[in-house]
């Protein structure tokens, strides 16, 4: 066989546990690199080899949503789904534009009491324990022909959006024609003008080679949402407390590293994109976007208005 399963083998002291981690990012993206590097190495080292960690990147075992389901049913031990609003509708607030303008705004809410209640809802829905919330970078709009310098430039443009209901309202609210497409179809759809643009963080824009077909990258700061790191609860509870502690510690450190690394990578990626000849537009009139933001927050039926008020009040 291929080593013992999560249930373990051997006598109590040297029992080994296989941890299978599923992730949807390519090599070079901070979550992928932290999981396959720091997390794997430290879990195996600090447990003296009692943990055997197998990392499956790049959606090899399924999409982020499917990986979450596999953790829920105990097939995988750990996954990193982006704010799964289809399971916990309250998480939709993370997809509102300009609600979390900076990483600090995001972590203040996520690491605070509001974040704790969201975490609890997610844990109940997925039979899992949340080990942390990681960054997915800040998403900017990029386009093929027209340069996006202010919100009016978006008028009538076909923009690919992720398949999340609230994002239809968001991009309609900004004046664009939102077109939901699977991630894998974005490159081809840009090539053939099925869409005129899309949005992504600098790292995804670079790794997916979108700059080859859509060369205008507008620093529009449109979206900023986190991804959850979840572990199957039954598996976690079956571990002796010293091993549980190792998992908690490693992922607490990993969270800090991942968030910092994403900030660094976003800057270095933007510099690299400029070197590649990408038209990086930095003087975007963000105020013009923000003027349309509040009506979107208030107008979308997918948003829990009480939660939104709570977030806004927590800032005063």
């Amino acid at each position, binding site marked *: *066989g*291929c080593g013992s*399963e999560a*249930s373990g083998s051997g006598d109590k002291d040297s029992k080994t546990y296989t941890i*299978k981690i599923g992730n949807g990012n*390519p*090599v*070079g993206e901070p979550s992928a690199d932290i999981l396959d590097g720091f997390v794997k190495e430290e879990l195996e080292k600090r447990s003296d080899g009692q943990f055997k960690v*197998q990392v*499956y*990147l*790049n*959606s*090899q*075992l*399924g*999409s982020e949503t*499917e990986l979450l*389901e*596999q953790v829920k*049913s*105990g*097939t995988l031990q750990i996954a990193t789904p982006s704010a799964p609003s289809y399971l916990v509708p309250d998480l939709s607030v993370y997809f509102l534009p300009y609600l979390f303008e900076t990483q600090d705004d995001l972590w203040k809410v996520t690491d605070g009491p509001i974040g704790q209640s969201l975490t609890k809802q997610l844990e109940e829905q997925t039979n899992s324990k949340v080990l942390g919330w990681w960054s997915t970078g800040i998403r900017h709009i990029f386009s093929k022909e027209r340069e996006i310098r202010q919100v009016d430039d978006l008028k009538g443009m076909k923009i690919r959006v992720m398949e999340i209901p609230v994002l239809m309202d968001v991009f309609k609210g900004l004046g664009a024609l939102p077109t939901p497409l*699977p991630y*894998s*179809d974005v*490159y*081809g*759809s840009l*090539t*053939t*003008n*099925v869409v005129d643009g899309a949005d992504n963080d600098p790292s995804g824009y670079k*790794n*997916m*080679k979108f700059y*080859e077909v859509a060369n205008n990258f507008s620093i529009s700061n449109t979206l900023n949402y986190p991804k959850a790191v979840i572990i199957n609860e039954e598996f976690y509870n079956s571990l002796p407390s010293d091993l549980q502690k190792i998992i908690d510690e490693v992922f607490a450190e990993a969270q800090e590293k991942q968030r910092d690394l994403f900030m660094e990578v976003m800057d270095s990626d933007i510099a690299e994109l400029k070197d590649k000849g990408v038209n990086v537009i930095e003087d975007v009139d963000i105020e013009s976007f923000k003027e349309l933001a509040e009506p979107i927050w208030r107008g979308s039926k997918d948003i829990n208005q009480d939660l939104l008020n709570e977030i806004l009040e927590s800032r005063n």
Partner: protein
Amino acid sequence: MEIVLMLLILMVILIMINVPISYSIGIVSISYFFIKDISLLTIPQRMFSTINTSTLFAIPLFLLAGMLMNKAEVTDKLYHLAFTLIGHIRGGLAHVNVLSSMMFASMTGSAMADIVGLGTVSATAMEKKGFKKTFAAAVSLSASTITPIIPPSIILIVYGVVAEVSIGRLFLAGILPGLAIGLILMLYIYLASFKKDFPREKSRASFGAVVTAFRHAILPLFMPVIILGGILLGIFTPTEAGAVAVLYVLIIGFLVYKKLTVKIVIETLKEVAATSSVILLLISISGILGWIITIEQVPVLLTDSLLSLTSNPIIILLLINVIILIAGMFLDATPIVLMLVPVFMPILLNIGVDPVHFGIIIGVNTMIGVTTPPVGAGLYAISGALKINVMDVIKEMLPMWGALFVVLLIITFWPGLSLTIPNLIFGK
């Protein structure tokens, strides 16, 4: 690793005793879940995941367009034209089959679209002109490997993302190898025609006959223009192009040729829906097996043993090709690229293989896999669509696979064939 090997052997036995192939794959996959005590919930999830993509609409849509073209008697007109043009050459319509696939390749990126659309139409036309149906199927199947090599290409986009290579470069790199596959297949057909006495016209058609044939075929000839033009101008996606093709055939079939009736259309829809369901259920169930192979880290373990054998670049490239070919017997192109590229990339960079060049190698290799048993969606699609025995197609495919292996070797050991055009346009 051992468990996967055991399951694969069991699967072959089940197939041999006449268990339907999709059930055989399903039974061994379910055994794995029981042996490993993994939640059965993952089985429906993988099945849904594999077919829950609009890209696969291309299968029923292009199949439908092709079938309707047959019923509207459009295909006959098209092939009559082709026959008057080059039917007198040794190999006749078999050449036309390959050439039309090369043209089709510049419109679509999936081999399945070629097989179930043009491939079926071409083979039917060949049969009507007196070719053996199984030989015609084998020509269509072999020619379909060109489709994802000549740009655009779905598999090269997947590769470009995984290997972090420019997709623009990959597309350009595919042009010459795609043409090479076509030329070598035509060379094989030409040589085989001496032995097999393929049907052909006794003499070159008169100029008047060609003009008449052209006049009759002008509307169907316009269809690739609409499809290609529509895709290039961004009016529709390659998948939607399948639906537009159906609409176009309906229009000319009802209004111009007047061969279609509502009853024929309903019958065709029913047949196509059932036939493509069989193909797609197989693809869906293969998704479970692919997942098992991935989670058992079979490719990683294979690579480790490969590197412990040799460090000779030529032998490594050969061995890598053999591994991909074996994987291609059991898996679809996309999961192979997703699993094997991250594993092989470090080795390849180590022995100085250009990643763009390797993209074309793995593209051609995995497309051969689409035509090989026991799991070969293309093989079953063409057999199912033409209602012929899979074994008879396999017999006809043997020399064709020989020709395809020759192209694969040429592409593998002649980097210039792939790299000249992209290096010319983008610089080194």
